[in-house]
């Protein structure tokens, strides 16, 4: 974990309302693992005050990418930063996605911007050739669908579900998951999920029903990002855990809804 000045290599709108930023920052990039996150300072005024957390979207060598949705003042400020500029980075923070160990089959379920950290995971898992990876991406519509090309580029079969059916199936990502598990037997995949609360909850439900190992990446408001302020507590079966230090990835069995 380091605080370091990064150099913005690029910062462009990937889809309406979504930006992709590449940052060169060796001490952070070299240590980063998929599922971990970083925090950035969005400018040096006292407004916005707190650092903003983002997952590692892609990690390669001395650089990493973040894929972010423009929501409020922090991400708005971030989106106006120019390539060539410097940015204050703190990371890598938290724990990455646990290794599937022996397990061969992997299913990745992404909802909306939740796809961001899963891209790095898929990239890593696809490197060891022996995995059979399926990705399910859920999005509002085709226009806001993210990363499909990225996964397909990795040779991963990618299924799409949109709320309005404008792309892929008109259903929820988790419906596709149910179906996938129903048709392929025997099929005991490890599931990795990131997305809106309701989606992760649905994934947890499916995993429980089928007795599958499943992990999700969670969000809470972040202040310190290092486990010092106890501000990002999240309820689990074993009491409060810290999203920034014990997470952001948790085993779905552990969570209380």
């Amino acid at each position, binding site marked *: 974990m380091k605080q370091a000045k990064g150099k913005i290599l690029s910062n462009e709108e990937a889809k309406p309302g979504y930006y992709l930023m590449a940052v060169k920052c060796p001490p952070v990039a070299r240590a980063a693992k998929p599922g971990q996150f970083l925090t950035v300072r969005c400018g040096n005024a006292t407004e916005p005050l707190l650092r903003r957390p983002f997952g590692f979207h892609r990690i390669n060598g001395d650089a990493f990418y973040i894929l972010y949705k423009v929501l409020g003042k922090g991400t708005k400020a971030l989106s106006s930063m120019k390539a060539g500029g410097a940015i204050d980075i703190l990371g890598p923070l938290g724990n990455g996605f646990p290794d599937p160990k022996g397990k061969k089959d992997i299913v990745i379920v992404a909802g909306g911007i939740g796809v961001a950290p899963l891209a790095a995971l898929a990239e890593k898992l696809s490197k060891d050739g022996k995995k059979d990876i399926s990705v399910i991406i859920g999005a509002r519509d085709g226009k806001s669908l993210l990363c499909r090309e990225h996964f397909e580029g990795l040779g991963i079969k990618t299924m799409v579900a949109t709320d309005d059916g404008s792309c892929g199936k008109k259903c929820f990502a988790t419906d596709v998951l149910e179906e996938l598990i129903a048709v392929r037997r025997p099929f005991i995949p490890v599931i990795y999920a990131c997305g809106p609360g309701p989606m992760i909850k649905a994934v947890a439900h499916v995993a429980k029903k089928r007795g599958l190992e499943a992990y999700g990446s969670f969000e809470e408001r972040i202040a*310190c990002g290092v486990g010092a302020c106890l501000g990002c507590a999240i309820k689990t079966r074993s009491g409060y855990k810290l999203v920034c230090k014990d997470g952001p990835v948790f085993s779905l069995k552990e969570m209380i809804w």
Partner: protein
Amino acid sequence: MVKPDLKVRIGALELKNPVTMASGTFGSSGEEYKGLIDINRLGAIVTKSITLKAREGNPPPRLVETSSGMLNSIGIQNDGVDSFIKDKLPFLEKLRTAVIVSIAGHCVEDYVRLAAKLDKVKRVDAIEINISCPNVRGGLEFSKEPDSAAGVVEAVRKSTRKPVITKLSPNVKDISEIALAAQKAGTDAVSLVNTFTGMAIDIDSRMPVLGNVVGGLSGPAIKPIALRMVWETSKKVKVPIIGIGGIMDYKDALEFIIAGASAVQVGTANFVNPSAAIEIIDGIEKYMRGKKIKKIKELTGCLKT
């Protein structure tokens, strides 16, 4: 010019410089920041407030950002004094900076027992009495009236020989009154301010943003008020004052010192920029060199009005 002398005294305790970390913003031992900054350069660290028994803390969300500030409602989550001594001491033993342990309780008896336990721990250089946490019932009340505050201070004073610092709440009519009472009751120093009780509302759900409804406001937003309170208090009390509230850089720290603080605590700034405290130490030293000030003590309370 010779290196400026940044040493300050808080009662019997001498700090290598006036820049310390505020309770609850630097972890329960500072270990979380080990890899990030050189903790040994700090004047002191104040550990997260501990209670007699473990507390699980308040329901999330516990944080929300406000204009140039933040609200927190952690609720003094901690494992209790015994686990603190068992689990955190090993790391604290290794530090070469002063360790001030913050204690919080529901009744005078709690404070007494906490102080007595810590009195036996050599590594604890001083005790900060948190009678001003807005996030636990009880806590805040003690610092609301001179008598109740004095009651806690007196009892703690009797149960330890270590320097005692009393941390005051800004949610009062006249903080200097409370400080005066704490001084009479034997505190070695006062630290101010703790957070201001505040809240935020989600207009769509029409519910409070914080799980605990209200929380404590900290950060640059409160600096002007905290600074005024330090100045007012410095005109009333003789004991050293530790200034706290929205200190983000060396300029802010110097404002508190000029207003009358012997030392400062850096809180929210640690979240915004983990290197803030170190940059503050360097900034103060540079300022002193530029102004040819030999001892930081010359600056404390030098405000010309």
